[in-house]
């Protein structure tokens, strides 16, 4: 364990007094020149960094209406000050959303507003909280903009909808352009370009892993459930976070998707070219990189000749899929127009359950009492199904269909007000373990409440980052790693397969006429 104190879990979340400098520091490991250059950024801090950074900020303000409006509109009312899980967990004043924004807004005011340009002539920029961009400011940006998981919780409560995620993406984009990048994000994006996924898992290893999983499933349930890779002419391309291929509890989710597809008789394939749903281009605020990463999915869909694209359980990936994919690499007019592009695996499973296409025995999960963690990006940046809020109701309806014991965590910690796991937005790296543990406090506190009051034993999640983050930090709070479950593990475990013999008759059934 590292040299910091894990926050104590109280009976309810106390809003701390702001402290100065608790989380000051160097920030996460910096990207090496080769990581930077692979993404089109300078390898190391450039000589003319002040001008380039100021100009890049001006460029972004001209390119993104949100950024411009957000930087101008904040009145410092304080509504957001107690909403960030990192502030609640660390007590550091600069982790209050408005204070984090002000790290950048102060520089915007100094260089890009008439008031700042005028007042600085008289040395009076402090009057409006403006400041010059110095090396200290750059370091402060690097540190504190890597203590934001871009979860958007503050934005829900802002009277103008100011989204700190947009500000922190812009700050990271500016830093990348002067040669200061984060190793974790930029190295991973490089791996996607080179190998096809975040984990750097090459095609032969992936094929091997999937074969191993097929054997495992067959041993377990006696049914030959397949996990096809790069098979042309299938209906569905499944794009899932690469952690699903071997991390725990992610892989149990992947097995769950395969079982659902198998039982419903849907024809599907994975792609080694697009073997990653995640897209860290968003974390670094780079439209260009986000587009380049997304392009693999379009290419794989065309190449494999599929009719539909379905995404596995992943939070920010679903944001990019749902909200950005059509913009970045659309239009998807070559796919079956009867289905939304893309679909979430939970939309598929939910629909199958609704139509009675799955044979479910919920008592298979009776040894557990569940709660559900709404992933920040799913809850506040996407939708599932045809109705607003489906991203909250569909996962719960699926869980309740396959589990008999379910309780929600307190109202103000779920749904649109959900607390981030503490590891999103490019924070999921060991060099940031302190902020990860502290940032998980509000979620852990909410979990503790339902564990005590309702006897909850497990928390289900639908995001690769949430799952990795929780299994890592949950022991700090006295829980155990195996208390985190993939939603599709619950589904997979509850599916009843008659036997291999009846399979032939099942397959001849009409299977393929889902409607969204």
């Amino acid at each position, binding site marked *: 364990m590292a040299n910091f104190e894990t926050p104590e879990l109280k009976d309810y979340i106390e809003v701390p007094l702001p402290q100065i400098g608790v989380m000051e520091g160097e920030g996460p490991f910096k990207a090496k020149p080769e990581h930077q250059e692979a993404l089109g950024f300078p390898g190391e801090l450039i000589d003319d960094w002040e001008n380039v950074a100021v100009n890049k900020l001006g460029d972004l303000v001209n390119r*993104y209406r*949100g950024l*411009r409006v957000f930087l101008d509109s904040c009145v410092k009312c*304080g509504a957001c000050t107690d909403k960030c899980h990192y502030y609640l967990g660390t007590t550091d004043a600069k982790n209050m959303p408005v204070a984090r924004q002000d790290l950048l807004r102060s520089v915007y005011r100094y260089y890009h507003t008439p008031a700042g340009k005028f007042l600085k002539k008289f040395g009076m920029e402090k009057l409006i909280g403006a400041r010059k961009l110095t090396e200290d400011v750059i370091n402060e940006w690097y540190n504190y903009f890597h203590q934001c998981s871009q979860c958007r919780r503050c934005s829900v409560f*802002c009277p103008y*909808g100011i989204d700190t995620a947009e500000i922190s993406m812009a700050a990271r984009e500016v830093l990348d352009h002067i040669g200061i990048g984060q190793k974790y994000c930029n190295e991973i994006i490089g791996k996607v370009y080179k190998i096809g996924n975040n984990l750097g898992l090459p095609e032969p290893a992936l094929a091997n892993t999937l074969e191993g999983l097929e054997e495992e499933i067959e041993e377990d349930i006696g049914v030959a459930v397949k996990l096809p890779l790069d098979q042309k002419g299938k209906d569905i391309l499944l794009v899932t976070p690469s952690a699903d291929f071997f991390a725990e509890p992610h892989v149990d989710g992947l097995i769950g998707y395969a079982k659902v597809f198998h039982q419903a008789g849907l024809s599907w394939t994975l792609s080694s070219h697009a073997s990653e749903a995640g897209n860290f281009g968003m974390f670094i605020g780079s439209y260009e990189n986000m587009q380049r990463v997304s392009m693999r999915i379009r290419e794989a869909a065309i190449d494999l000749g599929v009719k539909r694209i379905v995404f596995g359980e992943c939070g920010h990936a679903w944001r990019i899929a749902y909200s950005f994919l059509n913009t970045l690499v*659309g239009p998807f007019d070559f796919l079956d127009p009867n289905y939304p592009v893309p679909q979430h695996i939970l939309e598929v499973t939910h629909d199958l359950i609704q139509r009675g296409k799955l044979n479910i025995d919920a008592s298979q999960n009776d040894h557990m009492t569940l709660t559900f963690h709404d992933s920040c990006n799913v809850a506040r940046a996407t939708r599932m199904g045809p109705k607003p809020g489906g991203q909250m109701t569909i996962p719960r309806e699926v869980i309740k269909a396959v589990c008999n014991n379910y309780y929600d965590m307190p109202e103000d910690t779920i749904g649109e007000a959900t607390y981030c796991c503490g590891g999103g937005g490019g924070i999921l790296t060991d060099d940031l373990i302190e902020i990860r543990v502290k940032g998980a406090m509000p979620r852990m506190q909410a979990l503790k409440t339902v564990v005590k009051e309702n006897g909850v034993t497990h928390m289900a999640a639908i995001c690769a980052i949430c799952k990795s983050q929780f299994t890592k930090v949950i022991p700090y709070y006295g829980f155990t790693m195996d208390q985190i479950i993939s939603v599709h593990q619950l589904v997979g475990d509850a599916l009843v397969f008659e036997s291999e013999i009846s399979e032939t008759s099942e397959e001849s059934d009409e299977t393929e006429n889902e409607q969204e």
Partner: protein
Amino acid sequence: MSFLTILFATLFYFATAVLLFGVGYKIWQYAITPAPLKIPVMPAPITKLGVVLRMTEEIVLFKSLFKSNKWIWIFGWMFHLALLLVLLRHLRYFQEPVWWWVNLIQPFGKYAGFAMVIGLLGLITRRIVVARVRYITAPSDHLMLVLIISIALTGLAMRYILRTDIVSVKAFMLGLLYLDVQPIPTDWLFLTHITLVILLLLVFPFSKLLHVPGVFFSPTRNQVDDAREKRHIANWAVKLDATRKS
């Protein structure tokens, strides 16, 4: 015409021009800046009508602020509603005859001044007392509140303590409006009141008061949730598209 009259008439015209052009420029700037990605904070409406309702709730009721913090909401909403009434009531100084509905709100408008001051005092108290809000407060945040409180107090004083000669005030204002400048009343309370108002008009387009046009342009609130159905693309992104391979 006295020097004072010429000075204030000039300042008033100048400040009005700065306000109109300044805010007009910002609105134009917000309108032409692209919003390249769909970023509504979800759950979001899936129709334009839904967005109109969402925006109305935000602008009329401060719904998100209500969810966030009841104290800021009470003080902030009270101040803004009272300000609206006070501004509408002030229309009577710019028109002859006075519109019927301006007469109708006159009794409410008279007392709204007090509600405005109470709201503002609540907000400034929070800035001083609540450590989190104190930390994020810049000197200009205090000055803005002090400025508006001073405008409100001088206004209330003119009505309830040292009544000003409202007939000549109105003559001056109508004169400004019809480009036929009339002598300005030399009542010091009125001169202070109008000086502060001129100051407010001047700083408006250069300050956080830009939240007034800004709130209408916030993409997290005014976008329709239809990313899967409609391809949304900015002009500069179209150029990137041209370099795509497939």
